[in-house]
């Protein structure tokens, strides 16, 4: 348990930033679900407040769990997460045929949200072992496999956005574990290959360049072969995967690349979100005064597009404040990761911080027209029980590790 001395190590800044963001979220959900002509609290707000209460309790509880316990539990958490992902594929429910949720009556539970954190624990556990080595690209195979298994299951649901999140967690954690940046860069080459493979000439040129690079580099022969084969496989798989995507997923990507061509459905969201954000100008139209929001031009305003409501009503100033809170929170976590003595804890913190940061950045990027629509919520701000619960729980873990920063 925690003793009094450790409580002095509580990261108050982190805690305050978290609570401030959650409070911001509730206020914006209140605004987003407010009809322009009927005042009064929407049931969604009441539900969100209730969930927040529960989530704060869970956060505190998670802070009490020791890092050794977490590390011991990591393989089981990982196993359980994979199992849940398998089960949800069999019995899950979804709005339009995807199988993402368990319907638990009061609450819809989305296993992929939890699985992200199980993967972070498992990855941290593996990378903190003494015999794990990361000085050759071949050594990346095991960490990649740890991520790819649940990621593939999430992709099958299908949930493209979340599955990409799984992949994005890996580079920062490997980097923190000591992998040379050059190798991390090489690890990303298959992705480039996948994108370039849509054009034969570009792909051929790219492969030739890669071949030359590998030929002159001083890597082990096995690593060179592995990288080259990885690039070819990824390149061949790219177009195949594209065919496998659901229509709406392709639509989202194409609409992002070429909004003129794409119809009402997807293009409309992007246009209206941009108008909402832009029209907020420096100081916003004022709380509850967003015209885009009030006239229901904005789709999904209390969930995925909550940031657009914020931007419209509170303007650049409000956005900058919220963004700074996120950045502060993440920087606080990175700082803590450098301070804790336990290697496992340090890796977990980096994983959680990266998840929080990337997910926020992607969601906000969507509302600003910087990224294709992914269907991911904005952590801590968007309406939605599971997301809030797991995000606060993960912050609870980080806070707990902060309390034990002196322990090995």
């Amino acid at each position, binding site marked *: 348990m925690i003793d009094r001395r450790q409580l002095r190590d509580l990261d108050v800044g982190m805690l305050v930033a978290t609570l401030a963001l959650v409070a911001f979220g509730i206020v914006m959900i209140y605004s987003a679900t407010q009809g322009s002509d009927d005042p009064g609290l929407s049931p969604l707000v009441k539900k969100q407040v209730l969930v927040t209460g529960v989530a704060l309790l869970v956060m505190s509880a998670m802070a009490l769990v020791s890092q050794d316990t977490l590390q011991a539990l990591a393989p089981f958490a990982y196993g359980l997460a994979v199992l849940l992902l398998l089960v949800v594929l069999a019995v899950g429910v979804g709005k339009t045929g995807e199988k993402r949720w368990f319907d638990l009556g009061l609450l819809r539970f989305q296993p992929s949200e939890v699985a992200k954190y199980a993967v972070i624990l498992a990855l941290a556990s593996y990378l903190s072992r003494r015999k794990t080595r990361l000085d050759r690209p071949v050594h990346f195979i095991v960490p990649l496999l740890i991520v790819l298994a649940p990621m593939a299951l999430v992709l099958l649901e299908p949930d493209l956005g979340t599955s990409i999140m799984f992949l994005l967690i890996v580079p920062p954690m490997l980097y923190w574990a000591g992998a040379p940046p050059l190798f991390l860069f090489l690890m990303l080459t298959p992705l480039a290959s996948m994108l370039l493979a849509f054009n034969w000439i570009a792909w051929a040129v790219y492969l030739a360049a890669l071949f030359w690079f590998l030929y002159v580099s001083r890597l082990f022969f096995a690593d060179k072969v592995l990288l080259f084969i990885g690039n070819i496989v990824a390149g061949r798989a790219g177009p195949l995967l594209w065919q496998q995507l659901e229509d709406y997923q392709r639509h989202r990507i194409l609409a992002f690349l070429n909004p003129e061509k794409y119809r009402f459905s997807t293009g409309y969201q992007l246009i209206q979100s941009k108008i909402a954000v832009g029209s907020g100008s420096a100081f916003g139209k004022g709380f509850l005064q967003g015209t885009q929001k009030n006239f229901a031009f904005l789709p999904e305003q209390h969930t995925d597009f909550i940031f657009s409501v914020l931007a419209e009503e509170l303007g650049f100033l409000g956005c900058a404040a919220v963004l700074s809170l996120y950045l502060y929170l993440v920087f606080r976590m990175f700082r803590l990761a450098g301070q804790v003595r336990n290697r496992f804890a340090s890796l977990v913190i980096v994983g959680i911080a990266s998840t929080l940061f990337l997910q926020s950045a992607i969601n906000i990027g969507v509302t*600003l027209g910087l990224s294709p629509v992914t269907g991911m919520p904005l952590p801590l701000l968007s309406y939605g029980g599971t997301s809030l619960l797991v995000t606060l729980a993960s912050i609870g873990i980080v806070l707990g590790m902060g309390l034990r920063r002196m322990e090995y």
Partner: protein
Amino acid sequence: MRAIALAVFVVIIGRLGWLQLVRGGFYRNLSEDNYVQGFEVHAPRGLILDRNGVILADSRAALSITLSRMRNRDDESLAATLSELLALPPELVGERLAEARQRYYGSVTLVEDATLEQVSVIEERRSSLPGVKVEATARRRYLTGPVTSHALGYVAEVSDRELETLAQLNYESGDVIGKSGVEKRYELLLRGRDGVEYWVCDASGIELYPFEGGPSQDARPGGSLVLTLDSVAQRTAAEALSKFQAGAVVALEPATGEVLVLASHPAPDPNSLVDGLSTEEWNDLTGSQTHPLLNRCVQATYPPGSQFKLVTAAAGLETGEIDRHQTVTCRGAYKYGIRTFRCWKREGHGVTDMLKGITESCDVYFYQLGARLGVDRLMEWTERSGLGRVTGIDIAGEVRGNVPTPSWYDRVYGKRKWSKGVVLNLAIGQGELLVTPIQAVGLVAGIVNDGLMMTPHLFKRAETYSGRVIATARPTPGHRLPYSRRTIAFLREAMVNVVQGTNGTGKQARIRGIEVGGKTGTAQNPHGDDHSWFVMYAPARDPRIVVAVVVENAGSGAAVAAPIARKVAMAYLGFEEPEPPAQVIPEAPQGPPTPGPLMGGEADEL
């Protein structure tokens, strides 16, 4: 890592700054003073053509007055103005304005197919009527009107229930959808895809300029549907039927199953259904005694009458119960237990073999054959002959008819609470046995196509609006009649004899120059006059058309139905009606219907 996070942060802040600080004024203008509005560009519905390229249904241009949502608009005073200008009830205008307020984009129709007067009234005051517009739309037009009513079906505004069940297909209230017939069956082909245009509009809803970067999309007109119908024969059939209270004509090409004629009378004018009927008119239509919305070709069932003797004969031959040369002596009646079953010909047919039994439609011959077969075997062979099941024609609502097997009688009357004597009535096609006209024509088409019934279909070809062929119907084998070659040859010989033979009951169907086959029938109708049936095919040697005609309450036999079938076949085969009519046939002894003081299900003539 912090550097990367910081870089991402800077990109986002930079983008925010661009959108909000630099372009803020532009976007604020868009959101507050201007609207980006999406306008639907309606795609015209595809053409429907007959087998020879005659257009049966197209679209015509119409103007409608529409409402779209507007901020800062005094809806109440607008409703008052509009109801006065257009002479509409204020509640209706208010309702439509409320609907328009709910719409994301696009508009709500206030007046469909507006008159020129209404249009000019609106156009004159356009600047003082924010969000009120005159839009050009395409409206369905059925060039052949009631003649093809039941085959084509009709379109109308999509209903709330359809909106719900077809959520995946992007229908919106106000869209038009096929409600019946091939309009419904081939909706996806005919519909086309609406386009969308984005315009920046000022506060009164007038388009200023196209929205830059708006994801607009061109409308794509619906594809053309080429049907197997022959519009000439179809019109002949519809006009012939129109002289009677009710009836149906179906004609097939036996080798392919192509439906050449599908006419049901009475038929509503589909154009009036497109315009929308008042509640009163709708009630008149649905409440009518003659059920004009019923497609009798596939939805009405009748006892087949004597045409069923073909099946009874086939059952007799196939089971080996009888051979065609065995004779029965008809003295005008047949005693079964304590009951007497009459032949339609009081004086009797004398010595009758199977060929004569069919040609002259002798009831006594088939009473005896039925009694020998028994209900079980006769109904088993009825089912094996493809009756009691749908033919699979490509329009909705086809019914199965009824084949009263022993288990059916057990279920309806209770076990053993019915007499085996029912078989006598069934053997001559009366009683609880019920068939649809499409089944009747399908059976004969199967017989003349060497036992293979082709699945009837109206679809011949689908083309894009620019004329490229997308899909072509392939003949699909349906049910196979389990009749031997000899049986089939005999049935064809008998049917030819019915028309061409000296004592045949179907002489009115003769066509000069070619041999044809056919069979008469009378469906007993407990509620009124009997229904008249005739099935025929032509030419006899190499049949290109099989026709079934049923005319309700037209009395018995060939007198009414046979000439209609003949006219339809001639129209399809391209024979001119000769003057005077070919081969004036001395009127066959069509005695007055037997008054039926007898018990049980005695048959009328034929």
